[in-house]
């Protein structure tokens, strides 16, 4: 608990520190490439024949995904706390790459824990992290995916807490991580709000984002939460079926998700009747996690955000479709959001506005998509 209390105090102090905030703003703009465009996807809109679809282009950020928004904030915090060593976990590898990147930028040692299964699926990202000077440690425990990498990173952190900062990549884990990650990612929604007002002169009718741990989605949703007329939809990984072990849809009725405690957080957890955390499956490593950020559980129970799931095959189809229609190859994670956006757009009136968070680019997924399509 002591490390979490120390972190909470340091984070809250940094939030009110003007020089901290202006340094972060400068890095987001001049290093990461913010603001990202809000792009009117005209051909996708035409294809669906309903709402006007906008894509929030987080895929255009340095390192190729929204993860850098959070790693820049947290690395500044680590430096403020005088921690010289950073540990991080990664699923798809995007957060690992973003962590390795900011550590290179600030000359800090970086160790990234990654499940053996994910290392296989995301070979290219493993090499990118190594190029950036990080050490990637393979995790062979449990399901060998994101949750096991988080366990291992937590073990490292509590063992080396004196000089080590744990740079958690999603809006989950113990407090203050869900709060911190949400705050750092909320830049997505704040920008999208300004941009849609500039381009359309009004707020959107609906927002859609994929939800693994839930950082890109909470980042988009949070600045709009008090606009009660805006519909928000989080898209979970439906995987290959609704049986426990075939998906990562924590909110699916009958899918095995119910409130539980995992990794210091109470939220919805996919688990068996004995409270053992279940294996999950998704074609996208970044959504392949048995729990979900606690704020999403709250928004779900409060009825403010709808949660749906999209299957592996529908995500694959959207992956290809967006590539061909808009010349944008999305991350498989983001392809889940695109797939559901296409359904929702059709049911909306022409002229209504739908923003989809394109949380990452798909270069990392090209090999797995090729494998999947050849099956």
């Amino acid at each position, binding site marked *: 608990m*002591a490390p979490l209390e120390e972190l909470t105090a340091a984070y809250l102090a940094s939030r009110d520190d003007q020089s901290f905030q202006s340094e972060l703003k400068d890095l987001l703009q001049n290093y990461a490439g913010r603001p990202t465009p809000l792009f009117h996807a005209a051909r996708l809109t035409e294809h669906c024949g309903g709402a006007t679809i906008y894509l929030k282009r987080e895929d255009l950020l340095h390192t190729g995904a929204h993860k850098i928004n959070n790693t820049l904030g947290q690395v500044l915090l680590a430096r403020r706390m005088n921690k010289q060593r950073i540990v991080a976990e990664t699923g798809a590898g995007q957060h690992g790459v973003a962590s390795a990147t900011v550590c290179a930028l600030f000359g800090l040692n970086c160790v990234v824990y990654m499940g053996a299964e994910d290392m296989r699926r995301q070979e290219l990202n493993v090499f990118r992290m190594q190029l950036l000077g990080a050490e990637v440690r393979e995790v062979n425990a*449990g399901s060998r995916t994101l949750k096991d990498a988080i366990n291992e990173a937590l073990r490292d952190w509590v063992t080396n807490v004196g000089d080590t900062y744990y740079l958690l990549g999603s809006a989950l884990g113990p407090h203050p991580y869900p709060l911190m990650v949400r705050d750092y990612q909320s830049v997505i929604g704040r920008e999208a709000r300004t941009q849609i007002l500039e381009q359309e002169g009004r707020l959107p009718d609906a927002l859609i984002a994929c939800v693994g741990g839930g950082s890109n989605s909470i980042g988009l949703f949070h600045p709009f939460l008090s606009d009660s007329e805006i519909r928000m939809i989080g898209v979970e990984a439906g995987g290959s079926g609704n049986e426990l072990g075939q998906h990562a849809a924590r909110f699916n009725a009958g899918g095995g998700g119910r409130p539980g405690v995992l*990794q210091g957080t109470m939220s919805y957890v996919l*688990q068996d009747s004995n*409270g*053992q*955390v279940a294996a999950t499956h998704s074609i996208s490593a970044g959504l392949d996690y048995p729990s979900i950020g606690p704020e999403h559980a709250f928004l779900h129970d409060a009825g403010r955000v709808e949660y749906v799931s999209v299957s592996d095959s529908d995500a694959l189809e959207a992956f290809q479709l967006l590539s061909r229609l808009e010349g944008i190859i999305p991350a498989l994670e983001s392809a889940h959001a695109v797939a559901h956006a296409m359904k929702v757009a059709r049911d909306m009136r022409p002229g209504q506005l739908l923003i989809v968070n394109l949380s990452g680019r798909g270069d990392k997924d090209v090999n797995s998509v090729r494998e999947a399509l050849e099956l």
Partner: protein
Amino acid sequence: MGRIADVFSSLKQQGKKGFIPYITAGDPDLATTEELLVTLAQTATLIELGVPFSDPMADGPVIQRASERALKNNFGLQDLLDTAARAQKRADVPTILFSYYNPLLQFGLKRVAQAVKDAGLDGVLVTDLTPEEAGEFETELHAHGLDMIFLIAPTSTDERLKLVAERASGFIYAVSRAGVTGTRNTISAEAERLVNRMRQFSDLPIAVGFGISNAEQVADVHRYADAVVVGSAIVAEMERLAGSPELVERIGKFGQALYQPEI
């Protein structure tokens, strides 16, 4: 007063220190667990019985592997408690559950307290439940006359030690160093400092665990603490003896080599 308080108070009267072995229930199977509990009862002051969990984030690789082996047997908390109850009938020794929160939460907190009581066990330690969040479960345990054991660590602030002192019963478990379970060649001086700090706030017995693996370390920790917990060293020995028909007997001897209650 519960059995835990009794056993520590009688040790104190005799000027002795305690020994707390840990095993993971169901490793390699529940039948062996029952035999191990009976055998370890000969040397143990108290036994910690681990509830296997899919995500044991406070444990090092040895106990993680024990959890994985146990989970392959696919049993529930009631099966585990039935095993412990059978062992209690054959050799009664104070026993606590050592668990992560989720398996207990899913079983139902009230139901856990009742089932633990019915099995003849004495208390529960939940590794990932902080005192701030523990109120509901603590109430259930106390209503059933059971102890709630809390962990303290060298990183714990005085405020946190005071909080634990107010809430703990039975004994207090002091973690010897920052980190996860697992054997170490040396026991850090931090452990002794932590025990001495805790004594300012509580008169409860203090057991030290994490990293203790041999008789010298046991004797060293006994200089300043009331008991030692040995977990990973025993579980690692079980791993080495996997499949041996003499496993139970040899683990009993391993325990005796660590600690002789008569001395």
